């Protein structure tokens, strides 16, 4: 059977449509629950990157490049880094004040700045690692083209 569309076969594409959302949601869950259960920004960000990589492997790179190319990814990574810097310096400037720490623990919105910095780290790690993956893939393809 000839497969003219880019990417893998129909079975892989169909299953990817189901699982990409789950993987993405799991990465966001790990990120947001970092202050309650094990996990955090770094691990969650890498899981989010894995969802994008799965999408890219299954559907081919054009599908993903239309949504998130290198410039956008680098911009997102920079936004994440600057956000984390701002949040972190807010904590360091007034170390005694941990405002909006709620009375109830073990909840999603209970840790104040910790959750915000987790989100910023996850944004930076996810976008940055995906940009690295994208760059390496494009570089290898280009070298193969030059050889031909």
């Amino acid at each position, binding site marked *: 059977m000839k497969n003219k569309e880019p990417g893998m076969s129909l079975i892989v594409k169909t299953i990817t449509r189901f699982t990409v959302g789950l993987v993405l949601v799991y990465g966001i869950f790990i990120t947001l629950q970092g*202050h*309650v259960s094990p996990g955090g920004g770094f691990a969650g960000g890498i899981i989010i990157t894995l969802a994008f990589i799965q999408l890219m492997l299954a559907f081919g790179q054009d599908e993903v490049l239309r949504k998130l190319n290198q410039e956008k990814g680098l911009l997102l*990574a920079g936004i994440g880094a600057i956000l984390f810097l701002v949040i*972190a310096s807010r*904590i360091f400037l007034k170390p005694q004040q*941990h405002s909006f*720490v709620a009375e109830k623990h073990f909840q999603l919105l209970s840790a104040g700045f*910790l959750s915000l910095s987790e989100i910023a780290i996850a944004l930076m790690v996810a976008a940055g690692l995906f940009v690295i993956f994208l*760059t*390496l893939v494009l570089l290898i393809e280009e070298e193969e083209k030059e050889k031909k």
Partner: protein
Amino acid sequence: MELHIILIFMIFAAIMAVEIKDLISSVIALSAAGLGLCLAFLILKAPNLAITQLVVEILCVIVLIRGTINKDLPLVKDGRWLFNTIATLFSLAVLLLFSYLALKELPNFGAPLMRVSQEYISTGLEKTGSPNLVTAVALNFRGYDALAEAAIIFTAIIGTLAIARKIGKKDEE
């Protein structure tokens, strides 16, 4: 005060590393700047990061020196096997003796709860609102560490992009 001295030293070492013509001298000036950074981390009370910086710096210096030296370093083997064997055995014995003496003094695993960790465990939940104490320590009590680790990752991303980019790449012909 010490921080300023170290920062000025690092600036001088970095300028030397850029300006010197000899490659090995440049690498050694760079490693001096890295050692200054490690000391600066220690003064800023981020010991975790200082260890990482030191280890990575050692690895980088080894790779860089290996890369800058064209020919292999001379390694004399013949005619002194007796001296080599005795020296190896002697240094092994000294190492084992001192590690025995040092390891005997170590406390049991987690046995005396140190003052700092006692504080974290007893008041971490109230102060940060995070039941996961690892996150509380990593992002709140030891925030400098997390900030600089994020900086390291961001630098790695930018470095990869700078090496693997298309623009600015010159043809070798």
